[in-house]
């Protein structure tokens, strides 16, 4: 419950405060958000499976974000930033879908 509240508060604060994102971070933010979403879905699935460990969640969340940003950064340096970020989004999207499918089975038993 508190976790859900945290998400809601985060969205509200982001919309209201409208913080300035540093230009250096800006290109990596969308990828980082998608990676974090993937971690969240993974965590939700783990919770439904009964194997949720908060430490694991924290590590996976942070490493997801960092690795995704790193890949995009590397892609930018290599000149294939657009393609590589598309690839990252596709992979993360597939993972989100599979996790969502597992969650769906838990919740709807179908």
């Amino acid at each position, binding site marked *: *419950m*508190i*976790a*859900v*509240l*945290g*998400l809601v508060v*985060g*969205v*509200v*604060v*982001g*919309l209201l405060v*409208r*913080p300035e*994102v540093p230009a250096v971070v*800006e*290109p990596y*933010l*969308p990828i*980082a*958000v998608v990676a*974090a*979403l*993937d*971690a*969240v879905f*993974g*965590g939700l*699935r*783990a*919770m*439904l*499976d*009964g*194997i*949720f*460990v*908060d430490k*694991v*969640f*924290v*590590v*996976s969340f942070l*490493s*997801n974000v960092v690795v995704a940003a790193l890949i995009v950064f590397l892609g*930018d340096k290599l*000149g294939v*930033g*657009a393609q590589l*970020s598309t690839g990252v989004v596709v992979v993360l999207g597939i*993972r989100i879908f*599979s*996790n969502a*499918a*597992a969650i769906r*089975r*838990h*919740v709807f*038993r179908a």
Partner: protein
Amino acid sequence: MSNEERPGEPDHADAQTPGSTTHELTGRQRLVAGLWPPRVTRAQLVVALLLFVLGLGLAIQVRSTSDNSALRGARQEDLVRILDELDDRTQRLEDEKQRLAAQRTELENSSDQAEEARRQTVEKERQLGVLAGTVAAHGPGITLTVNDPGDGVKADMLLDALQELRAAGAEAIEVNGVRVVANTYFSGDGGNVRVDDRKITAPYVFKVIGKPQDLEPALNIPGGVVQTLEKEQATVQVEQVDDIVVDALRPAKQPDYARSSSP
């Protein structure tokens, strides 16, 4: 990367394994249990913190994407491409602007020229009109008044006077209300003089536009017009006038045969 892989289960474990009903029930129950009685545990707090960060990032990203500037989230190479396109477009528009400006200048020049030509034509028409007697004229000049009590003034004397005036630079002349033009003629004898077939009687009044300082001496030279007339018992008065009006007119006559040969 994500935590469900940690306990060694395959990624799609529950998709393949025929999970027992109790397992699935507990999954649902766990969700409900995690949701409803809000417990402040370390796990909940940590997850809440991370989700807060996620929500923040999500909101910021959505905000900046829906900011009207599509350039905000654009990548470097896209920006370079867009900049190139804009440069090209600027160049094209600049070229077009120059072309249009040149065209405008040309049109302005040509309309200026047309205006100038029209002005010159009007000016010329006026000048020619003064010569042809179709328009009134005014300017400095003299009046020459010839009184002829003895009816001794003949047509050729008046013609001499007229020629003398023309030679002295007279530009517009009127005799007793008749405009003098190129084909003006005098006829008749003393007391019965006709100008262009119109009878005129003494006193004969010449209204002449021209330079007075030239006209008056031209008439007064020894053996000139004035002396010749005075020999015939006529009295002659020459008077300089600052602004004399010659307003007798002639109808403009269209030549029947002669055509202008200049383009």
